[in-house]
């Protein structure tokens, strides 16, 4: 295995393009090293992106958009007050990944590129409308987070493409988001169902909403009918019932010992209600 430490994402991409064997990009390594250890993936070329300037930075741009470097670890996100105030749902999703030790290394982009349908940070990123910069042989393109997952362990990234950064839009007035997951224990587990809700209010009325489910289909699911159930409402009982029904209807889960199809489908509705209430309270100023 060759270990590379490129100084730019263009160089990182070029190494991957030129490679004939298996390549992996290394940021936090909490998935890549486990796969190497288990002989699931044996890279011929391992490209460590952590020597590229800016990969550890969290920056609020002039337009109030948040720019997060590709190697920023979960623990660094959780400790960032401004980011936690603007996007608490995104941060609580990432904060649920693994242990304190894993949080010291694991990254948002790693969670996204690992391609797990149960990745805890991805539903809230998608609900927030987050985008990533993809650097590849044909240049750089901006892609919505929701368009990256292609199935379990797969992404829409082409050979040689690498994600260089992630961008959360300006929070703006009256916004709130939340993420909840179900696991059979209290900590250190993988989501059986996850649900993120991001919304905006004017007064008590919801004017914008996005609802995204995790772990109930081969990829995350953006549930447009669930958003429609919320928009225009004051999160009354009727809206909550319609939200839960839409969330459950969007589920196409696997059936396994961690959660049956019926269970996951039902719990998606329950979590959607609860996450919507938290996001609604946050949007109206309760923290």
């Amino acid at each position: 295995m060759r270990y590379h430490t490129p100084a730019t994402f263009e160089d990182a991409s070029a190494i991957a393009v030129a490679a004939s064997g298996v390549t992996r990009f290394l940021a936090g390594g909490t998935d890549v090293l486990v796969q190497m250890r288990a002989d699931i993936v044996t890279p011929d070329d391992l490209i460590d992106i952590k020597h590229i300037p800016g990969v550890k930075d969290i920056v609020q741009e002039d337009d109030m958009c948040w720019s997060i470097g590709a190697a920023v670890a979960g623990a660094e996100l959780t400790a960032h007050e401004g980011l936690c105030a603007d996007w608490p749902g995104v941060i609580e999703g990432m904060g649920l990944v693994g242990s304190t030790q894993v949080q010291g290394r694991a990254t948002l982009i790693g969670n996204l590129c690992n391609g797990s349908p149960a990745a805890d940070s991805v539903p809230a990123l998608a609900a927030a409308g987050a985008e990533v910069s993809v650097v590849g042989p044909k240049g750089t393109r901006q892609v919505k987070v929701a368009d990256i997952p292609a199935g379990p362990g797969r992404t829409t990234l082409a050979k040689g493409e690498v994600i260089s950064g992630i961008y959360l839009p300006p929070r703006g007035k009256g916004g709130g988001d939340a993420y909840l997951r179900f696991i059979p224990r209290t900590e250190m587990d993988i989501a059986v169902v996850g649900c993120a809700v991001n919304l905006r209010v004017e007064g008590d009325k919801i004017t914008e909403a996005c609802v995204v489910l995790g772990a109930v289909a081969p990829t995350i699911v953006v549930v447009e009918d669930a958003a429609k159930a919320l928009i225009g409402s004051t999160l009354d009982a009727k809206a909550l019932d319609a939200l839960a029904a839409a969330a459950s209807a969007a589920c196409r889960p696997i059936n396994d010992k961690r959660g049956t199809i019926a269970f996951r489908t039902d719990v998606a509705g329950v979590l959607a209600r609860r996450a919507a209430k938290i996001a609604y309270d946050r949007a109206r100023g309760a923290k």
Partner: protein
Amino acid sequence: MTQIHVTTTVNGDEVEFLADPRETLLDCLRDKLGMTGAKEGCGTGDCGACSVTVDGRLVCSCLVLGVEAEGKKIETVEGMAEGEKLHPLQRKFIEHAALQCGICTPGILVAAKALLAQNPDPTEEEARYWLAGNLCRCTGYDKIIRAVLDAAAEMREGV
């Protein structure tokens, strides 16, 4: 296989070693530097027995490559005692009998030290969540948590 020369700092001392890029930091600490405090339990980041800090951040050394340690500051359990004088956490682990087989103990000590560095007065719940990535199959955790909270209390008093 090409070996890569790595210079890093472990417990305040500059050290050098040659690493195959596939070798983990845990392998390098144990096999090249003779520091066998960090243990390999699972090798996949689930058990925490290999916990060390890298630039002050708690990590599993089985999930870090040795070559990634270049230029970093590593702290391991070997750096906790000052000569014969045990760290308060080490003393309290003995007083509370917070270990049996001892495999998990170095990782838990390093993890608990990292907790107290950022939160000198953790609640029991905070301590349990912080240490959720450190598995112990002997003690049932209760004595570990008591030892950590007792050490925290003593360290706050500056004894």
